[in-house]
């Protein structure tokens, strides 16, 4: 994956996000179905979330404000948030 993740398809962006989350949480990315609850089911804590955001920013070239996560509860919700930010950046 190149720095800033330029020239990536939507599917590759989603895959990159899942890889980041898997690396930080040490959870197999196969468990990341869209409806899975990030906190309740995956047990991802606030420190991991901070590191996930920072890595998404670093490798995908987006800026994620922590306040954007207030209403994000599922894996699908998080993927949609980051891919939409990436899409705005590419537009």
């Amino acid at each position, binding site marked *: 994956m190149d720095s800033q993740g330029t020239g990536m398809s939507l599917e590759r962006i989603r895959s990159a996000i899942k890889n980041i989350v898997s690396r930080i949480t040490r959870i197999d990315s196969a468990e990341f179905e869209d409806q899975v609850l990030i906190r309740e089911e995956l*047990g991802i804590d606030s420190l991991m979330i901070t590191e996930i*955001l*920072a890595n998404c920013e670093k490798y995908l070239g987006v800026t994620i404000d922590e306040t954007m996560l207030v209403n994000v509860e599922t894996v699908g919700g998080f993927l949609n948030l980051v891919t939409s930010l990436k899409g705005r950046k590419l537009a």
Partner: protein
Amino acid sequence: MNVWDAIGEVLTGWGGTDCLLELHPGSGVIHASAPQLRREVSDLALQLSSWGIRKRHLVPLFLNNSIAFVQAFLALLKIGAVPVLVKMDYRRLELEEVFRNAEPQAVLAEKHHLPVLQPFLNERMIVVGKSAERLELAQSAEGLPPPEDIPEEIASINYTYRGYGYPLGAMVSHSQYLQGAKILQEHLQGRRGEKMLVILPMAHIFTLIACILAPLLHGLTGSIALTLHPRLLWGFIRDFRIDYITSVPEIYEMFCRLRDPSIDLSSLKAFVSGGSRLTGDSYDNIRSAFSIDLLHGYGMTEFTPVSGNVRGQARNGTVGPIGRGLECRIASPLSDGVGEIQIKAPWITKRYYRRPGETKEAFLEGWFRTGDLGRLDGEHLVFVRELKNTRKINGNIVDLQELSRALRMDPEVAEAEITWEQDALVARIATRARIDFKEKSQKLKTFLRGNLAEYKIPKRIIQI
């Protein structure tokens, strides 16, 4: 001497630098000069007194990290009231125990947090809510008598755990705070005008002593960052020339992984570390990434720091020499020298509030039993592991018995065994009947989320 009296004296001769900064991501900085802090603490003390808060009143604080937290803490000490320090993460089961034990006369909380506290508030309490920069009286109550069992020497009550399954209110004296700050400074050797970054929750005694009291008492600026996001923290460190950070090893490890060599962090001089275990590899990684002193130490609510590595003399694998004036012994050491760490000093916590049995068990012949195993390596203390039934997650103490008890509240759960595996909490559950365990596991996590601090939720729940 009262903590506020000691700080008030220092503020009088502070000089021109800020004593506190509040660093907001994206929206600037709030400064607090020494005269401003003195005046605002005095004004706030008058305001709280006018609302009915009196000497010896117990007042839980549920405030986010902020200059306002420091002002509220100091204003309560000025009045002679007793701040009760409790994590904002606490939920129903923890709050039930704290409110039942402390029976506070007043509560000071972020307004948005009041709904969480509502079940524990009653018409006999003074309730003060904070929104934006203002404190407002949400509920008044008149003529509340203070408790009669808080000695004059007590500054605050700080809740902690020792594996009993419920929190204990350590009665922290003014001299405990002042001596802890003195020892911290002896290890750090910070200079007037330097800046300490504050990122850990202020309700924790490690943060209060290392990031607020030690800096205030020695002329350093406490710089309160309202985020843990590394990109923003690097910016603060660069822009405000931060000299020190106090944090837990897990956060330093994250910093290592997210270090950006393009950002100038040359102002940093040392990291103060504590609250969790620091492995030898982590020590090497952190030192390699930042090339500054890593001063890892050891302490607890009942006294901090018990020990700490000293600037310029830090050693990997130890938690440093014992703090000056403190006595430390290793009780009943085995052949490898490992035994329970026990400490003695006039200023350590002498009892847990309204818990005589637990207090008696915590002391042996005048020595405080830490409930941790360690050994001495020359003059340095080496922490081995917890003996008591608790574990640390990102510096937060988790009582394994409390978690087991919470899970057993579910009528379908017959047994709940909590273990610590690969740096995570694991719960093994036996149910009374055959059920859909995946669904039950989900429901148990949802139940725990509403009833305990989030960091206590087990990562895995396994059926046995």
